[in-house]
């Protein structure tokens, strides 16, 4: 009954076990980013890598809004602002400006009938704003023509032309 008899078969696996735990702790130390941990909202909702917030802020803004357009395209801007279409953002038809005029140098205008029908396909739904918008039946109303052939989107009412 000596230490040697007890030692080897117990201590050896124990040291291996401790070694594995230490190795895992070392790997974890280098693998997990410094800013990963428990933040403002506590462990349940606030356990994360803080740098990710900045990552999300770096996403490129594509839709710039009409104020971005109005200085260079003041004539177009003025014309639509006097029509019922003044509520529609330029980019809803002209596409996202992104870094225009640098990139893209030219925007692609959506002139499809489908774009107009988003609002002007008649759906007389009570308690929805849709019921108040004038609509056309696309199957009978000048099929195969773009709406802009007759209606100027910036000045859509034919009777006040």
């Amino acid at each position, binding site marked *: 009954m000596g230490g040697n008899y*007890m030692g080897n078969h117990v201590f050896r696996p124990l040291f291996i076990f401790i070694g594995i*735990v230490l190795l895992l702790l070392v790997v974890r130390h280098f693998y997990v980013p410094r800013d*990963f941990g428990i933040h403002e909202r506590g462990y349940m909702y606030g356990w*994360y890598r803080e740098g990710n917030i900045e990552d999300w802020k770096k996403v490129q803004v594509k839709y710039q809004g009409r104020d971005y357009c109005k200085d260079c395209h003041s004539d177009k801007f003025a014309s639509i602002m006097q029509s019922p279409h003044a509520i529609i953002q330029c980019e809803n038809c002209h596409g996202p400006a992104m870094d225009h005029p640098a990139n893209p140098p030219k925007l692609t205008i959506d002139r499809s009938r489908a774009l107009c029908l988003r609002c002007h396909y008649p759906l007389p*739904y009570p308690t*929805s*704003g849709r019921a108040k918008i004038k609509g056309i039946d696309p199957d009978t109303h000048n099929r195969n023509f773009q709406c802009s052939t007759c209606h100027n989107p910036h000045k859509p009412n034919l009777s006040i032309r």
Partner: protein
Amino acid sequence: MITRRDLLKYAIKGAAGLALPLAAIEIMNPKKLLADISGPGKVRWGFVVDTYKCVGCGLCVKACKIENEIPYDANVTRTWVERYVLTKDGKLSADSPKGARDGFETKKIDLGLGNFKDIKNEDINKAFFIPKLCNQCDNPPCVQVCPVGATYQTPDGVVLVDRTWCIGCGYCIMACPYGVRFFHPKYHTAEKCNFCYHRITKGLKTACVQACPFGARMIGNIKDPDDPVAKIITTERVAVLKSEYGTKPQVYYMGLDEEVR
């Protein structure tokens, strides 16, 4: 002299001790916990949807998909618009083809699998559109279930997903009672509406709010009493979706109907 029994005992205790995270020893102060919930920050983003104004044009969905780089033709979207039609026979018909990316350009209700239901105008009792997006819950169940800390709530109340940290297990997609989460077709990580975090933190409105011609969507700081969104929530009749889940959603609806789930 150490006996075999003692040594095994020490070894088990030692291993258990090594496995114990330090966080487990921390004693929570109830006051600190309360402060954690209300939050010390000056900003808490909130959203208002006025369903009376929505016409179902889907321009919000189109703008969201482009702004947030969600593959346009994949049938996934961060925000969508649902159509509800209640007929005189007491039946409810609802659809949201392609999430209303292209709006609603037919009276026929899309039942899926190529089946459509035609409803006559005179049979309609009430019909309306309901835009949906992430509720940025105060108690987000999607965050609770994440095993790796890849999804979390920012101090200003927005739930984000860390694409570099997400392992794609999909627990959060199952946990969200509102079904707003999905896998991003390109990154294969959990994806969701984040109130256009890159825009709101620059002082811009979200892409969907800006694209809506009718003012049906509004975003604001609900901790600022002068903010238009805060004013609506505090002074007008608003409701949230599935309040019975205790998730404390922060997207408030005007003109919500019981049929909306």
